């Protein structure tokens, strides 16, 4: 299969930048993979790029109202920490996760709008001239995306407008909200006529894109350097889409995986937040099991959620208003109910992934799970001291990494560790200063 980068990668190390290479050659993008263009991958990465290598994955989850910090963070640091009330609900998996305190993204402020910076760490997301940067999952998708039918999956609960996934050109990938739709895309086979029609559609799309890319090149010659940059971005996006259509086309010929589980039911009401969350967790596990993708993001848009239905409990206020508890006991109690559900569902997910084995390891060992929030305390809209849980993926867990609560340690360092675990020879991501101190790979 063609090995192409789906989006421009300006690699700052010795490998040739793609654009300069292209201009020199004056040819279109459909070139076979060229040795000169491959950035330096670690040995492990090269292994994982071959079709039979065992995959590694990531799942990034952001609960954009966070959890009650007083009940989340444990006491004591290191391996002997004392579990908090919330962490007690994950006790069965204590050795499979690391809880991290005293971390945040440098200069990511602004309260609620900071959820879109959760996986990008782009600073000042609430400012009026904010430009987001590439998210962790898209960075991974660019490098590994061609190995699976879907380079990535962008999911959400209750949030069509809030996305964790951002392309390198600073544009959000709209999340899928309906688990049933995603399931169909992943597993429902098309008939031969449908497949042929789909291929035709993709080819038509590519021919349209060819024509407009042509025009943009012509126009670019007539404008100054500054304007030329905008047209260049247009051209690049067109080519980017063409690649994706080409890759989709190749995948059309391959049969989709067969699964024995039924499609998830439609959950229409945003109040059924926990049901939707569970459905998304189940879907993520299925997608990883069938190697349909290796990078999944899940935005839990708690801010945009109305009153949550919890069987056996009374919730009286919308999720966002609850989070502005203003220290009232009643609201705090209801938040605890919701937070505990988050912990229980997460615990179930970890258990489910542990129960699937993959060549001597469990699916959990090969999948990095980041569960966190852009808000350290939703009541105050504070974006520091973020509650962070990191599980699986092949690390030494079972510890509390306690960083400085007054001067936070950069969370992007965790992202660098994650990239290295995926097999990439990276030592920087956004505002990182290195890998995460105290976190070791197995």
């Amino acid at each position, binding site marked *: 299969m063609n090995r192409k980068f789906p*989006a421009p990668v300006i690699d700052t190390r010795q490998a040739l930048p793609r654009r300069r290479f292209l201009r020199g050659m004056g040819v279109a993008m459909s070139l076979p993979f060229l040795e000169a263009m491959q950035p330096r991958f670690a040995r492990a990465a090269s292994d994982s790029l071959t079709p039979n290598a065992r995959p590694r994955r990531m799942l990034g989850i952001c609960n954009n109202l966070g959890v009650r910090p007083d009940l989340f963070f444990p006491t004591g640091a290191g391996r002997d920490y004392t579990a908090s009330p919330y962490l007690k609900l994950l006790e069965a998996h204590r050795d499979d996760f690391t809880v991290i305190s005293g971390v945040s993204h440098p200069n990511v402020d602004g309260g609620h709008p900071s959820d879109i910076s959760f996986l990008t760490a782009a600073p000042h997301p609430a400012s009026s*001239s904010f430009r987001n940067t590439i998210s962790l999952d898209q960075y991974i998708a660019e490098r590994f995306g061609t190995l699976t039918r879907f380079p990535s999956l962008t999911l959400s609960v209750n949030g069509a407008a809030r996305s964790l996934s951002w392309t390198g*050109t600073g544009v959000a990938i709209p999340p899928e909200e309906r688990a049933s739709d995603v399931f169909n895309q992943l597993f429902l086979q098309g008939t031969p006529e449908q497949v042929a029609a789909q291929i*035709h559609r993709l080819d038509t799309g590519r021919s*349209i894109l060819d024509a407009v890319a042509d025009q943009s090149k012509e126009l670019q010659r007539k404008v100054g350097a500054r304007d030329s940059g905008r047209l260049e971005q247009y051209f690049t996006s067109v080519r980017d889409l063409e690649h994706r259509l080409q890759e989709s086309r190749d995948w059309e010929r391959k049969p989709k995986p067969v699964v024995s589980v039924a499609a998830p039911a439609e959950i229409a009401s945003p109040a059924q937040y926990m049901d939707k969350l569970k459905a998304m967790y189940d879907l993520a596990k299925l997608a990883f099991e069938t190697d349909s993708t290796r990078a999944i993001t899940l935005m839990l848009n708690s801010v945009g959620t109305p009153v949550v239905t919890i069987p056996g409990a009374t919730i009286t206020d919308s999720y*966002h*208003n609850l989070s502005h508890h203003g220290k009232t006991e009643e609201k705090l109690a209801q938040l605890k109910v919701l937070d505990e559900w988050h912990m229980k569902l997460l615990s179930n997910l970890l258990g489910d992934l542990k129960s699937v084995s993959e060549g001597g390891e469990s699916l959990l060992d090969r999948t990095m799970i980041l569960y966190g929030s852009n808000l350290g305390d939703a009541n105050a809209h504070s974006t520091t001291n973020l509650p962070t849980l990191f599980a699986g993926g092949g690390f030494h867990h079972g510890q509390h990494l306690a960083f400085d609560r007054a001067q936070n340690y950069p969370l992007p360092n965790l992202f660098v560790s994650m990239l290295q675990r995926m097999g990439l020879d990276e030592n920087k991501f956004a505002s990182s200063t290195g890998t995460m101190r105290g976190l070791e790979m197995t």
Partner: protein
Amino acid sequence: MLCGASLADEAPIKGSAEFFDQYCSECHYEDKSGGLDLSELTFTPDNRDNFATWVRVFDRLSAGEMPPKKAKHRPAPADLATFTHTVSSSLTAVENEVTARDGRAIQRRLNRYEYENALRDLLNVPWAQVKDKLPLDGEAYRFNKSGEALDVSFVQMERYLTAADYAMRQAMSAAFERPDTAVRKIYARDAIGQRYLPRENGTLPDRLMFPVLDSHAQPEVRAGRAPNTSPKTREREAVGKVSSIFSDAGQYGWGFNAPVAGRYRIRLKGYSVWVSGGGIGRWFYTGQGAEKAATYWLPVWHRPNADEIWPGRNNEPIGIYAQSSGQTRPVGVMDFTPKPSVGEIEVQLAGGESIRSDAMRLFRTRVNGSDEQYVNPLATQEGMPGYAVQWLEVMGPLKDEHVTSGYKLLFGDLPMRRLGAGEKGGVPLESVAPNSNPPLGGPTGAAAFGVGGPGAFPRSPISNVTVEVISETPPQDAERLLRNFIQVAYRRPIDEPDVQRFLGLFKREFELGSGFARSMLTAYTGVLASPGFVFVEEQPGKLDDRALATRLALFLWNSTPDSALRARAERGELHKPEVLRTETERLLNDPKSRRFVDAFTDYWLDLRKIDDTSPSATIYNDYELDDPLKLAALAETQLFFAELLRADLPARNIIASNFTYLNERLAGHYGIPGVAGAKMRRVTLPRDSERGGLMTMASVLKLTANGTTTSPVLRGHWITERILGIETRPPPPSVKPVDPDIRGAVTIRQQLAKHRDNPSCASCHSKMDPPGFALESFDVMGAHRERYRAVAENVKPQPGYGMDGQAFAFHYGLPVDCAGELPDGRSFRDVKEIKRLLMSDEVPVARNLARQLVVFATGAPVRFSDRAELEQILQRARTRQYGVRTLVEEIVSSELFQNK
């Protein structure tokens, strides 16, 4: 160093080292006061931050703010003037070079509002939903009009392809089926069937409907012992309710679906009623299977007794909504009075949209927990208000001779034909199933007048029909049509490579056997996703007539030019001042200028974020669910600005005005008497009203709060930045956010005491906070308050019930202190006084408005070298008291607008 300097020059500005050494080094070298380090400040204009620093240096020196008054060494006026002049010349020279080479504005694509309008206008499909298919635009200088913010990605490209295809098929649908104008009358008694008694999942008594005749009850009909309808009483029969739908998302439907997109006239007949209390407390079912039976609790004073009904005691506002695939939008309002009346509205509907109606003032039954406790807030010991609706009549689609103009653009006079089953190719169009509507005058079939709500929407009546366009000479027709299409869609002359390029798309598709229609749409999709359509093409220097026409239309219509404007440009006359003025007037007077008002206020005042927060169900459950209040608040601001524009009212009205736009609900919210009815209308405010101007509008006050608490800092910052045009820098990272205390022990003002006491905080906060403190007199929805609402376990709450039927949980706590002091030392006791103080100098308000308009109109902010031009614009507008329309006109005639 000055003109002609290379942009990569790294030396400092001439004379700066000496100047800084002498007058600034004490604070700004080692100490770096205020974060400003002047010790080695070079001039690297390519670096935005560096350029901005030099601008700040210039501004503070010119204003005499720096060096501070008590500094030991201050420059002599002549030396200061020389230095600032040098700085100014350097900055201006750099910018002029950039302007000459690249223009002020970076090339940009249409934003998603403009793209939607452009497609709608081009294809004459005003109902087409295009904007929501495109990714959100970025923001620069607070608007979505600058190239810096308008990125393109593969997502964007994919959406262009989808959106263009969809809009074109809408145009085809509009021409495919043109049923004759028909009248459908649906009687409420037919729509509801016989459902007056409780069902398993509709047992809440206040949600039940009941029969009404001539403002009185019909117990026999209600109990099922008499027929629901009879010919003698048909025209007077009605169905009544005492509540609104429980959720914003659902309304009672009438079973009508618009057969095609078009304009429809809707008439609704009904009246208000008064219902006695003492109705059954609650129904529930016990037993299983055959033994299942209804039992009920004892009568309760606030539950309706639907067997005792009286003529209404007040008017009831009724809202009309259009709904399709789960999305609802309000399309009109009318008032029911105690005497039966017919309300009428005309609306644009998309194919398949259904009509729903609902009361807007009545409460929405929200249960608390599982024992269904709620109380109607409008119920009294004597009964409660309700409404009764008799029939709905829809006439349409109304004749519209332009409805096929989109199709004509695409396919000329070529006919369309439906493809039979099994025929391949063709283009799928959405069509409404023929028997989804009630036959004229007769009863409905399926449950139509049912309860809506999330997850309970009726089956969509839309299905697909596949059509083909018949051409006897495909290659010739294709070229002819394509040439014309590109000519109309592009805003510049076509060139042959473009025609061949897109014709090639047609040929490829046609040779693959996709049929004429699909092949043409493929070519057209290319055109509508191409840079020629999507990008705004401008060359540095003076804009040619075509580029000027595009800029004018994007400014005043938020869309592309119409044929009349294009004709002026083609004839080369648009740049002539009289012609430009005439066209500006024409565009402003056209109803499409409302798009400018809405898009401008959406970004300048953030109105598009009105739903980002909702009132807290704990503290503000009298506002929660009050959608009509929010809609009225939005309309007030938009209508107000539109009026400032239309009547050329002075910009100072932004601070304080003697009029605004209200309806009964909003007037009640503000405490202004004498406004009746649901329609918004212009109202002259009482002489000493605190309302008037933007700051005290409910929309602005809601946007600057978070549904639970207000913040003087956030409100103050918003006002000083957006209205007064004073920029303040973000807080230093070490500042901890304030945790508001809604238990009411401490006021927010007390919590912010540090802002006054700490000098480094005060430097910014003394500018930002004052309007915020004045606005503490207004709660999260903009109502006046003398005391803060608070919630605490040991304090008795205020008596009363919210719109959700739940008891108030709040009590009135600490008093509001809205006094403050402006930076210049003038003090005020309340918002009226601060408005008077701010009105003493209207120029900053006018200047700020002009700045915002310049960004919106040109895509570039007022830069350092543009300031002189801006002052000239203001100067010319001075004779008309800085009228808003005059500002717009002066901007259009300025160099800023007429150059890239």
